[in-house]
């Protein structure tokens, strides 16, 4: 399936160690890989084309830096260019004067508008705001009820005049109620609609006119493909969009369509939806989506989770180890313990580059099982300290002894060692990626997390 872009490029550049410059020929080979990778990530093909041109312009004839491999260098250019696409996008909502602030949610059917209405309500309430929510979806069966339930779960007030079935009247009624009752935010949920449905687009325009929103958030499904820029583009042209909410990022979709929407339609991503629960909403961070599109896993989110589970000292210790390539089976065991602490294993694994690969997960389904972790721990516990610190000592007879001591099998021991070696390799790569991160502060943060990720 999809290998991380850096893996692919590693292959392309393997043959040219020691070259001083990136030549046109080698860059061209790399660009083919990049193109393929981006298309597989659902980046729009027009965006890919423009993108490839820009990367080519920057890469050809560049000096190969001493500190980076050619592959790393090209990945860095790709990453920089992608980040540039986002400009200085900040996640969340911009400050506005309007009181009540009106937020209108719009988008295609089933993208996640109603759920996001609840999530946003909760998020705003957490920030000390007083949001009121209203559904204007009189079409989908039980849509109004759905928002009532969601609103209750979010702990926010739901405006729901019984029997009022005119979308515009529901919206303007809510606005009047918000004004009268001192709510400082009004979130308006709308029915899903196709961008080519003239009647419903007119309805949306009428709702917009009635409440004069300062935020028009287009909710886009992260799993969307090439059509994304067409639909988002039409919503923007006909109604206007001020930001995008990228929903369903908790799966394994790469979200390249979102990148395209930002690039082509020119609106920033405000939030990312990462689950069905109402707390699963996060302000957008460009670097995370970029890593993901490039197949590097959602390393930063993982780091944040890890940081909660890991102390600063431990983290620094591990950082040193990773840098010096001294990651041992002992650290591996500690790290497994941390992972156990970090919660839903499948979610965590999904964020790790390489492990996010679904095929792998399916093939090794037992690996995801927590009981399996305990067996791994038992295996490592059955090793001598020396063995833990130097896995190369582990010859056949030692492996047999360990299997016996831990009540497992030699195959299991072998499998674990294989995993460990893979992990070591990955860490080396991650270390490299972190080093690529832009300027000082960000870089530090990346590195701090890296060790955090692997440590307890």
């Amino acid at each position, binding site marked *: 399936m999809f290998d991380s872009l850096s893996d692919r490029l590693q292959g392309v550049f393997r043959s040219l160690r020691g070259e001083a410059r990136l030549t046109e020929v080698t860059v061209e080979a790399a660009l083919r890989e990049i193109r393929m990778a981006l*298309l*597989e990530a659902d980046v729009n093909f027009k965006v890919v084309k423009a993108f490839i041109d820009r990367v080519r312009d920057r890469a050809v004839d560049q000096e190969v830096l001493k500190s980076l491999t050619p592959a790393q260098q090209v990945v860095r250019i790709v990453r920089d260019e992608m980040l540039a696409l986002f400009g200085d996008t900040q996640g969340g909502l911009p400050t506005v004067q309007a009181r009540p602030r009106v937020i209108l949610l719009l988008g295609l059917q089933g993208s996640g508008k109603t759920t996001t209405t609840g999530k946003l309500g909760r998020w705003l309430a957490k920030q000390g705001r007083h949001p009121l929510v209203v559904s204007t979806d009189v079409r989908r069966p039980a849509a109004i009820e759905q928002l009532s339930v969601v609103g209750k779960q979010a702990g926010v007030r739901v405006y729901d005049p019984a029997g009022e079935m005119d979308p515009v009247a529901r919206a303007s009624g809510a606005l009047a109620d918000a004004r009268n009752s001192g709510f400082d935010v009004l979130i308006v949920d709308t029915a899903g609609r196709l961008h080519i449905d003239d009647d419903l687009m007119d309805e949306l325009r009428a709702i917009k006119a009635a409440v004069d929103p300062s935020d028009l958030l287009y909710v886009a499904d992260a799993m969307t493909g090439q*059509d994304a820029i067409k*639909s988002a583009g039409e919503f923007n042209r006909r109604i206007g969009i001020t930001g995008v909410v990228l929903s369903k990022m908790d799966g394994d979709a790469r979200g390249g369509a979102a990148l395209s929407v930002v690039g082509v339609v020119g609106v920033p991503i405000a939030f990312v939806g990462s689950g069905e629960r109402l707390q699963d909403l996060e302000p957008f961070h460009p670097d995370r989506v970029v890593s993901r599109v490039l197949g590097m896993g959602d390393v930063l989110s993982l780091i944040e989770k890890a940081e909660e589970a890991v102390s600063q000292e431990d983290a620094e210790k591990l950082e040193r180890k990773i840098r010096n390539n001294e990651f041992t089976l002992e650290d591996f065991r500690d790290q497994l313990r941390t992972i156990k602490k970090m919660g839903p294993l499948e979610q965590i694994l999904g964020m790790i580059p390489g492990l996010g690969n*679904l095929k792998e997960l399916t093939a090794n389904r037992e690996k995801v099982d927590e009981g399996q972790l305990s067996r791994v721990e038992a295996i490592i516990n059955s090793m001598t300290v020396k063995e833990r610190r130097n896995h190369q000592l582990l010859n056949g007879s030692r492996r047999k002894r360990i299997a016996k001591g831990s009540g497992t099998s030699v195959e299991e021991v072998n499998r674990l060692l294989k995993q460990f070696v893979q992990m070591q390799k990955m860490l080396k790569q991650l270390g490299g990626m972190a080093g690529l991160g832009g300027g000082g502060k960000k870089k530090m943060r990346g590195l701090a997390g890296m060790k955090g990720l692997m440590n307890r």
Partner: protein
Amino acid sequence: MGFFERIKDSLARTTQQFAERFEEVVQGADSPEGRTRPVDVDTIEALEEALISADVGVAAAARIVEAVSAKKDRGQSLRALVRTEILAILQRAASPPPDGQRPHVVLVVGVNGTGKTTTVGKLARLSKDSGLTPLICAADTFRAAAVEQLEVWATRAGVDFIRARAGADPAAVVFDAIAAGKARGRDLVLVDTAGRLHTRTNLMTELDKIRRVAAREVEGAPHEVLLVLDATVGQNGLNQAREFMSVAGVNGIILTKLDGTAKGGIAVAIAHDLQLPIRYVGVGEGIDDLIPFSPQEYVDALFEEKW
């Protein structure tokens, strides 16, 4: 890969604009003189792009185009060749839905928001119109107002329905529904399930449990497990299909929201890689907006711009 080798040249010429629409692409190639020439790189690339923009995917597009350009110099029209190639992929995957003991149990599954509940309503109507006596089972006990939503559809279809107590075990509801179906002598039980991402192992296991319960109650059940795919879905659709197939035993696809501008081309890749047939397509939000899949019509629509 071989394909990419061949288009290397044209990739280097970056400023060139390629025709976007399939029609434009094939016009040159299909002109009287064009037919006798092998396909040139520009045409190949443009053709590939037409397929990619329909979400067929790079790999599948490359395969299709490769197959087509190998046959091209026999003087056939390029357009006809591409259509034939895709038709062949779809037809290779086509197979009649499995039959078996009554009631025939159909599980409707998929990721969040693809149109499962709506489709169950439409399926109930369609099967009732064809003389069957369906029963609807609401096994989404998770999403807010999911049961209420399905109840409206059941009423619209004029089909009775077994509701779940909120938070109940979905497998228990399916058990109840099948029992009711048997008792009432129904020949079809349509089960709506909660949306779930294929990456959520525990939720996927829940589907396996539903399967096992159904299998215990009726021989060969669930006879059909239909994966509802949103036509806007990109390359992730292949992951979805693969995972739902392996865990939930999916044996058919319903492609919804084809009334939009997205083509659901990933279904072609899925048909090719996994041999999963497309059974129905959803073309709107009304109860009659579900039609049995026709490969022929689908292929026609695949290359047509809607706006």
